[in-house]
């Protein structure tokens, strides 16, 4: 994939859906659709994970890559899939009220119970 322009609001999501889907905690950055170009889009499968959103993954290897809310015009892209050096910094933790019981969050980044 290719992303154009600056990126902001890098967040780690601790909701139970992201935790089951990623296997631990999912980190992503929102990208406006007109700045995101996906190559190999034919390999991406979309799973409707709620009334409001869907998740895109690679049907070949299972990588958990995209999340998008319907009608918002932007897609959250997994930071782990972005080619390093990313030049990014994790800025906050979201849905901390729903976090897993087997780890602590200790990096000092702001935490929000919900989004």
């Amino acid at each position, binding site marked *: 994939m290719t992303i154009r322009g600056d990126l902001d609001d890098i967040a780690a999501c601790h909701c139970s859906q992201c935790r089951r889907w990623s*296997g631990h905690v999912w*980190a992503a950055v929102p990208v406006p659709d007109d700045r995101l170009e996906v190559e190999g889009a034919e390999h991406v499968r979309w799973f409707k994970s709620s009334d409001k959103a869907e998740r895109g993954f*690679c049907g070949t290897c299972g*990588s958990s890559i995209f999340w998008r809310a319907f009608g918002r015009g932007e897609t959250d892209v997994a930071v782990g899939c972005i080619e390093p050096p990313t030049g990014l910094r*994790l800025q906050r933790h979201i849905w901390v009220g729903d976090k897993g*019981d087997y780890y*602590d969050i200790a*990096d000092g980044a702001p935490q929000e119970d919900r989004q």
Partner: protein
Amino acid sequence: MSSEGSEISGACLCGAVTFAGRLTSEPVGACHCSQCRRWSGHFWAGAELRDPAIEGEPLRWFRSSEDAERGFCAACGSSLFWRETGSRRTVVSAGAITPPTGLRLEGHIYVADKGDYYDIADGLPQQAQSRRRVAPAAFAAPSG
């Protein structure tokens, strides 16, 4: 912490793939290797089971290296399993384990390969590489 012999179970996001089994003595670890980071979307955490029962038609295995493969649900895309090819042991995603898990993360591995956009600050032992069974004392499960 990894309570050897404890039984755990879990499922993918859509519920089509399930697993259950008993923990081995391997520590519950977070892996920061570039493969786990791409696959999970951030970094991956897992617990090792011996001979787990894994069920569900959408399960697919991807050969991610010469000696290992990764299992995921082809219906919802959940990243679920890592195992050495032919091994009876399978590492299952900590995030997919049904809570309360009764587990504690015990350390970080492959931190030499970690992402450049986050810090590891929880004070747990870190290993530059090394996935399994070569753990120095610092990474071993706490005694007592």
